């Protein structure tokens, strides 16, 4: 028998109110403080959790419906891509290094954010905030899974995609995103929210997912652009929540303002350092480029971030402390990071190479103030050296910044010829930093950052060898032993692109595409 139901549907605001309010209860078996032990110690004061509103007013039923639709579309593309040997339609096998770095260093971060939002959702008291955190945790899990499914197709054909979980906990350059994620995960729930939802998702993720993913499309990688944009459709919700979360905290109590400002200062700087890797991917690893890192920074950080901070000024919030230095660095970081990875190309699970003349000319045009003066001569020198049979591979290990864990390769603000180097002595121990901002982050939380697991320091202490190696053996090669500990397939995963197995296979398979 059909039920006679009213035709009138609730409006979006009524639906949101019904699905996010009045769902909680006052605990009686335990005091509320024991049930929610972590939402006070950071000093944030919340007087009315019901003021938390998701501007999209997304409710769980709508969430499942739209996410299901997104996934159906995504998996149709991934399947078609795999069935039609889509990997042979990319511009050039050099492009795969960008996807390897994404897979090794970005995807596991998605998995960390799942844990972070699950935890924040557990520890916030307001129902609407808990629902928002729950959705975001599920989103991030979806990102990790869809990236795994999309990229596993590349793992069938190319090197460097294996052993992601193993490498994440060990490999030197992956400690940069890993330590970033662990810093956020081990912070209180409100700091986590400002670190990830606001500083990273709102101010910085556009730089990763918009121009870089458009670049993936430009390079013929429909699989990556599809998971990238599918993830970004969730990110646009997260960004909106990020700005909502910060307004909520600032409006709840004036005492929250200086605490939030401190977190913005810290996390903007930390995020801008992690994204130096993306700068290198955009400027050097995409054979066809949509825009330069500098242009992307100007649109998404300076213009959009600038509008945001003008807007937050009414709460007494100013742009992050490192803003001017990060903006100046837009002319330099992608080149400095690429040169670092090129020289340490024997120890990366992706390939590096010398840019072609056409690519050097593109960089000269995009970076008129810095490239010809500081970077082109070095790249040409390294290319000439390689042509004469002397490919440069650094074998001594660099000093790492205790905070961001990036080797000291960035230069002083105002002087691109001088490596920036800071030191702090804390309880008799010397700590090294890449910048005054990273040094200050350490000084604000020394108890946390003295625990940094710095790969170079661990290697020198002998903690990065497989258990069966004998460092006293006469033929012991420490660098090789470390790379084996990382689970690299030596000579296949690492080294120059020129002459690599990936280069040869791609050329051979693509050659077969047109004939038997």
């Amino acid at each position, binding site marked *: 028998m059909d039920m006679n139901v009213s035709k009138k549907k609730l*409006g979006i605001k009524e639906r949101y109110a019904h699905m996010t309010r009045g769902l909680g209860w006052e605990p009686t078996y335990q005091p509320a403080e024991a049930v929610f032990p972590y939402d006070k110690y950071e000093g944030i004061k919340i007087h009315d959790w019901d003021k938390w509103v998701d*501007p999209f007013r997304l409710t769980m039923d709508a969430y499942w419906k739209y996410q299901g639709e997104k996934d159906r579309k995504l998996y149709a593309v991934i399947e078609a891509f795999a069935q039609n040997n889509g990997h042979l339609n990319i511009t050039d096998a050099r492009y795969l290094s960008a996807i390897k770095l994404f897979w090794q260093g970005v995807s596991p971060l998605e998995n960390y954010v799942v844990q972070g939002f699950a935890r924040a959702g557990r520890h916030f008291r307001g129902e609407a905030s808990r629902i928002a955190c729950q959705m975001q945790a599920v989103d991030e899990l979806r990102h990790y899974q869809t990236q795994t499914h999309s990229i596993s197709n590349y793992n069938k054909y190319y090197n460097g995609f294996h052993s992601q979980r193993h490498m994440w906990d060990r490999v030197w350059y992956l400690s940069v995103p890993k330590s970033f994620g662990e810093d956020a995960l081990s912070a209180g729930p409100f700091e986590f929210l400002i670190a990830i939802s606001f500083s990273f998702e709102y101010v910085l993720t556009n730089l990763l*997912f*918009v121009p870089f993913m458009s670049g993936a499309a*430009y390079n013929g990688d429909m699989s990556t652009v599809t998971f990238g944009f599918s993830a970004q459709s969730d990110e*646009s919700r997260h960004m909106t929540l990020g700005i909502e979360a910060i307004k909520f905290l600032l409006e709840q109590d004036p005492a929250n303002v200086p605490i939030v400002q401190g977190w913005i200062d810290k996390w903007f700087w930390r995020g801008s350092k992690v994204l130096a890797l993306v700068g290198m991917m955009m400027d050097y690893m995409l054979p066809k480029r949509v825009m330069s890192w500098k242009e992307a920074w100007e649109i998404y950080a300076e213009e*959009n971030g600038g*509008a945001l901070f*003008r*807007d937050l000024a009414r709460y007494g919030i100013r742009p992050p402390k490192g803003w001017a230095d990060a903006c100046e660095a837009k002319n330099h970081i992608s080149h400095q990071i690429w040169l670092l990875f090129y020289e340490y190309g024997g120890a990366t699970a992706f390939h590096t190479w010398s840019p072609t003349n056409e690519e050097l000319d593109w960089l000269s045009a995009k970076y008129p103030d810095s490239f010809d003066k500081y970077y082109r001569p070095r790249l040409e020198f390294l290319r000439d050296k390689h042509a004469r049979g002397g490919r440069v591979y650094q074998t001594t290990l660099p000093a790492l910044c205790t905070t961001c864990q990036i080797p000291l390769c960035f230069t002083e603000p105002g002087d691109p010829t001088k490596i920036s180097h800071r030191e702090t002595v804390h309880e008799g121990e010397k700590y090294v930093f890449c910048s005054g901002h990273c040094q200050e982050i350490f000084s604000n939380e020394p108890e946390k950052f003295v625990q940094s697991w710095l790969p170079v320091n661990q290697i020198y202490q002998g903690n990065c060898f497989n258990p069966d190696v004998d460092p006293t053996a006469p033929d012991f090669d420490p660098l090789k032993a470390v790379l084996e500990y990382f689970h690299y397939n030596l000579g296949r995963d690492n080294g120059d692109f020129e002459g690599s197995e990936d280069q040869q296979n791609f050329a051979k398979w693509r050659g077969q595409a047109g004939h038997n």
Partner: protein
Amino acid sequence: MSKVFIIVQANEEARPIVEALVQDNPNAVVQESPAMVRVEAEGSLTLNRSTVEALTGQPFDIQQLHINLISISGHIDEEDDYLTVAWNN
């Protein structure tokens, strides 16, 4: 006035969204990049349900935007009939 933007995927589902934004926001500027379309404007942008429905001849739920949305900037005001993004500066 600061600039706001809405970026959607370059596909057939999102095309009427871009067309509706252009139709209803005279100062909107459209920039096409590989696989994506960015619509930007000084101050604010409004997407009206009725405009999308008139263009496609089909019912449209404002939240369908989520399926093809890539990025958005500004404060969001969403109702059943419209979505507006704006900066207060």
